[in-house]
Structure formats: structure tokens, C-alpha cells
């Protein structure tokens, strides 16, 4: 499972100077993603928020991977949010502020794809150099290019 095939520049949010709340950041990503895949925004947001209420998806090292499975979604989709200033109220395992958010949505029936996509996302951004490069990127296109490069 490659993350790159799900990365699209128009699904990348770059907010170099903002320091949004977790709710605002998630809403921003849901806006982008729901529009891109043509899914009901409220339904997607409600699912994402419900999932976060169970356990925060901040996994440390400035990384968060909120994820949901949605009914009647056509195919898996990913939105990326880059917030170099950090999201202060995003609870994370190592208490580090979350700076990179990968929102992953998958259709309900595609459990395996979903898990593998999650694993691939974590895998790619585990690399500190990759994280730094992504945070330093100037445009969504740059971010997309970086993520698509992946490791050889």
C-alpha cells in the first residue's frame, strides 16, 4: 500500500502562520476532503469528532492521523494539513504539539486497505527528515512532491 497514490495537491492545507484549535484544524481538513470526494461535510465531521472523542489520534513527534470509515464513500481518500506553529489542544502521546495532520477516510467495507493506508502514513512520516522537509515546504505542490517521493 502506497500513500502516494492518495496524495493530491488540492487536498493539502498549508497554514504557515496559523495556530488553530484542534476542532478548527479538523474542520478545515474535513472541508477540503468532503468537497474533494463529494461527501456530506457534517456527516464526515461528526464521524471524525466521534472518533477523536474515543481516543486522540496524536501519536507523537508532532504527528496526528485522524481516521474514519464512512458508509457510501467511493474510495479511500487522504487530506494533509501542515501547521508549523502547532495545534495546542491536540492531545498527543509525547505531549509535543501536533504540526502535521493526516486525515484518512476509507469506505466501511475496505477494512484492510484502511489499516494498510494508516500504516503507510505512519511509516512515511516516522522519518524525521521527511517531517522537517514537509514542515518547511512552501506550497501544497511541494508537500505532495515530497510525500510522493517517499523512501526509495
Amino acid at each position, binding site marked *: 500500500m502506497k500513500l502516494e497514490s492518495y496524495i493530491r495537491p488540492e487536498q493539502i492545507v498549508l497554514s504557515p502562520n496559523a495556530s488553530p484549535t484542534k476542532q478548527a484544524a479538523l474542520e478545515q481538513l474535513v472541508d477540503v476532503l468532503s468537497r474533494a470526494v463529494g461527501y456530506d461535510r457534517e456527516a464526515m465531521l461528526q464521524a471524525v469528532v466521534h472518533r477523536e472523542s474515543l481516543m486522540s489520534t496524536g501519536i507523537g513527534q508532532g504527528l496526528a492521523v485522524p481516521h474514519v470509515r464512512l458508509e457510501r464513500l467511493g474510495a479511500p481518500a487522504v487530506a494533509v494539513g501542515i501547521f508549523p506553529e502547532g495545534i495546542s489542544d491536540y492531545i498527543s502521546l509525547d505531549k509535543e504539539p501536533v504540526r502535521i495532520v493526516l486525515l484518512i477516510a476509507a469506505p466501511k467495507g475496505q*477494512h484492510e486497505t484502511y489499516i494498510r493506508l*494508516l*500504516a503507510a502514513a505512519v511509516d512515511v512520516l516516522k522519518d524525521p527528515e521527511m517531517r522537517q522537509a514537509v514542515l518547511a515546504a512552501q506550497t501544497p505542490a511541494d508537500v505532495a512532491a515530497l510525500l510522493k517521493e517517499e523512501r526509495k
Partner: protein
Amino acid sequence: MTPSLLGQFDLEHLPILLIIGFALFAGGLGARLFQRLRIPQVVGYIVIGLLLGRSGAGLVGVEAIESLRLFNFFALGVIGFMIGGELRLDVFRRYGKQFMIILLSEGLTAFLLVFLLVWPLAWVLTGQWAMSLALGLVLGAIASATAPAATVDVLWEYKTRGPLTTAVFAIVALDDGLALMLYGIAGSIAKQLIGSDTGSLAETMGRTAYELFGAVVLGALAGWLLNLLLRIARDHDKALTFILGALAIVIGLSITAEVDIILAAMALGMTLVNLVPRRSRETFQIVERFAPPIYVLFFVIVGARLSVHEMQTWMWVLAGAYVVGRTGGKMLGAYLGARWGRAGQAVRQYLGLCLFSQAGVAIGLAILASTSFPAEIGNAVIMIVTATTFLVQIVGPPCVKIAVTKAGEVGLNVTREDLIESYTVADVMNAQPECFAEDDTFEAIMLALSNTDATTYPVVDAEKRLLGVITIQHLKAGLGSKGLGSLLVAYDLMEPVIDSAEPTMPLREALTRMSEQDLDFLPVVIPAPAEEPAHPPKLAGLMERRRVERRLTREVIRRQESAADREQSQLIRDAILKQRETTK
């Protein structure tokens, strides 16, 4: 209508083929009716015959019966042939000494008691010494037979297993053979007693021996030759032709040589079945498929020939004596035989109760008697046996049921399928399955997994409402990658519930649903009350295919062991008794 047309419909002179056709139809319908009443269909044919024949409508008159004489001989041959096919020597050998003792005891006691009751009674009632003796002998021999079909049917219906069941199977399988032998001997003696030839005793014995051995030799020889022929004739049509040809030749030669027709045909069948047990099975199947109309016609004619008006009071008295003697004889004989044979308590106490049923062989022998004895005896035998068959077929099966119930052998022979039919989902479900909450972490789930042997875990909310299920199959996808653990909770891993069962659902239905949808499990839920349809239903338990299978297998084994225990304890008892015997 003109008089000539009317004349053609003279009831006394219907064309013989019309009579045959009518008899077949009416017989078939009668059999169905009687089967409904759980009375053997043979009785149905005979009753139809009674209604059509001399006792009833007079449709099948004396003339018609006379012109069907040849057919009768042939039918007797077919019946003998089929009975012979049942007499396999290996079956006799298989059931060792114990069963032979019980068999001889119950058969001979029934024979003796009936003989000792009927002979003097008939003598007093009719004043004919020799005829009464003959009647006693013939009825005694017939009394020794037990009908396997109705008896075994009860054992199957109640899924019995244990020493009593084994004994019943053995005895009913063997005692037709005993009855035939007894009849062969008693019948021949009886024939000499009342025959016109009033020769010396030696002459009588010689004549009997010739009739018996002649028939056996003729049949055996024909069987050996037929076997050679059947090796060449592989296809069914040719085989059937040869078999029927051989039967006709044997019957014809029997008539010419004045030996017993049915015995010769029996020897033919018996030779065939014992020469080539496996290949001859097919031979008998061919004849069996072809035989029903012959039986129907034959038995209908038997009924038609009877005249109920001739069933005089003394016959009713003898019928009563026959039932008393036979029932008492079977009970006493089975008890004594079981004691002598060192059978267990259950067999001693209850075997007799299982041996009342009487049908095919008894009626067959009665019919045989009617063809080979003067009408006086022949009709009496048929009347008595037919009337008593009615009675014992109604009383017999319930007695078998009582016996096996008291012996505690009911329900011990269940199969997996039987259990499935009798269970509901609630009987086999796991009522306290390991459950997860939506926010249980991956680590918690893995821990639970390693501590339980389930493969499926329901995910429920605080009120135990079913939200989804987690299966090991699903978890596997997440196992490979490090770092995912901290990202996943039960909510991420659960899948929606495809189908569910309710506790009251029959297990059969639940299992069918599972296999139709290829599911390994089925959550069991209490349906949501009507006022809150939007909520998911509450979880009542979980049905996992693996666990259900194990549960069923264990239960089948438990019941089988219970049956085996009973047999075992009997074996041990036998061993102790033997030990005591030797130390004496």
C-alpha cells in the same frame, strides 16, 4: 342400454385384465389408507381384497380367482425369493451364541404356548383331532415370527441405543428365519396329519424330508446356475429376464416334482445372496422394484378369496388364544433366553415387550398355509393371523416404546443433525462473550485475545447495545506495522454486523443463514423495542461456528458414551459371572 351391453358388465364375468387393473388400483389406495393408520400395508391389500371379493362386492369372483392360480404360484415364488435374499449366513454368524439362545427361546416358547393353547381349544370347538393338531402346529410356527419393520421403525424414531436395542435388532433380524424353518417342519408334519395319504410314520417323515430337501436342492442348484448366467448379463433388462426365467423354471419344476414352491424359491434367493453377497444386492434390488404390483395383486386376491361369513365363533376364540399364547410365549421365552444367555437386566426385563409386532412373514406364512391346506384350515389360519395382525400392529409399537424408555435407551443414538433440529440458538450460544467498548485500545484488545480462545468479539456500548464485531481475521491486517497500536481503538477495528440471530431462533435456521452468507459467527441480539427503533439491538450472546460444532460433537459423544457405558457394564457383569462359574 341394450341387454347385450349390460351383459358385458356382468359383475361375475369381468375380463380378467380389468379385474387385475382394478385390484391394483384399489389395493394401492387401500395400502395408503392403512399406512396412515400405521398398520402395515399388507393388511390394507387384504382388506381391499375382502371388500372386492366374496365377502364384499363380489367383484372378484371364484372364477377370476381360479384363473389367477398361475399368477399366484408366481407371486409365491417372488415372495420366497425375496425372503431368501434376507437370509445371509454371515448375519447369523455375527450375532454369536447369546442371541441364538434368546432367539430359540423366545421363538420356541411362543410356538409351544400357541400350539398347546390352540390344539386342545380347536379340538374342543370343532371336534376334529387331526385338523386341530395341524392348526396348532401351523399357528404355533407363525407365532414365532416378529415383524422387523414396525419394530425397528420405533427404535429409529426414538433414536435408541444400548444392549436392549442391539438385542432387538438381532432377534427381529433372525427370527423370520426361525419362523420359516419352524413352519417348514411343522407345516409338513401338519400336512401329513390331515393328508389323504394315511401312510406309516416313516412314510410321512420320508415324504416331509423329500418335500423340504427336494425344494432346497432344486433352489440351490438353480441359484448356482443363475449366478453363472448373471455374470454374463450385466445390464438390468437382461438380468431381470434371467431372474424371472429362473424363478418360473424353479416354480414349474417344484409343481412337477411336488416339492415346496416357496421353499425352493427361498433356496434360490439364499444361494444367490450367499454366493455373491455384494453383486447379488443389485439382483434383489431389480426384483424389488418390479415386485410391488405382484404383491398387491397377490394379497388382494388373498383377501378376495376369504369369506368373512365363514369366520365362525370358534375362529375368534382361537384368535384370542393365539394372541394370549404368542404374547405370553414371547415374554416368557425372551426372559428365560436372556437369563440363559446371560444377557443384561434391560434385555431380560424388556426384550419380550419388543417382540409383539407381526406382519409380512406371519401373513405370508398364513397365505402359504391357505394354498397348501384344505380351505377349512387355510381360511382359519388367514383369518386368525389377519385379525391378530391388526391387533398387535396397534399394540406392538407402543410396547416397544415403553420398553426402550424404561431401559433408558431413548435418545442415546442421536446424530449431530438430530441435535441441530432440537436446539435453539440460546442452547448453543456463548451467553457471556468477551466484549469490547468502542474506545478499548489495540493493546487491550491484543491482551484479551491472548487470554481467551474466541475468534470473534462483539463491540458494545455502555448499555450492551451491539455496535459491531472484531474478528481475528480483521486484526491480522493491523499486526504487521509498528506504531499502529497507538493509533487504533476498537472502533477502528470493528466491522458492521452483517446478520444476527435471536435467542429463540431454531439452530437449524441460524446455521443455514451462516452458511448462506459464509459467516463464521452470528451475534445473538434481543430485538430493539418498537419505541426505540433507531437504537442498535442489545447483545444477548454470540454464536461461533467453531464453538457450536464443538458443542454438538461433545453432546453426541456424551450420549453415545452413556449408551456404551450400559453395554460396558453388561460386559463386565458377564465377565464376573463367567469368573464365578469357573471358580466353582
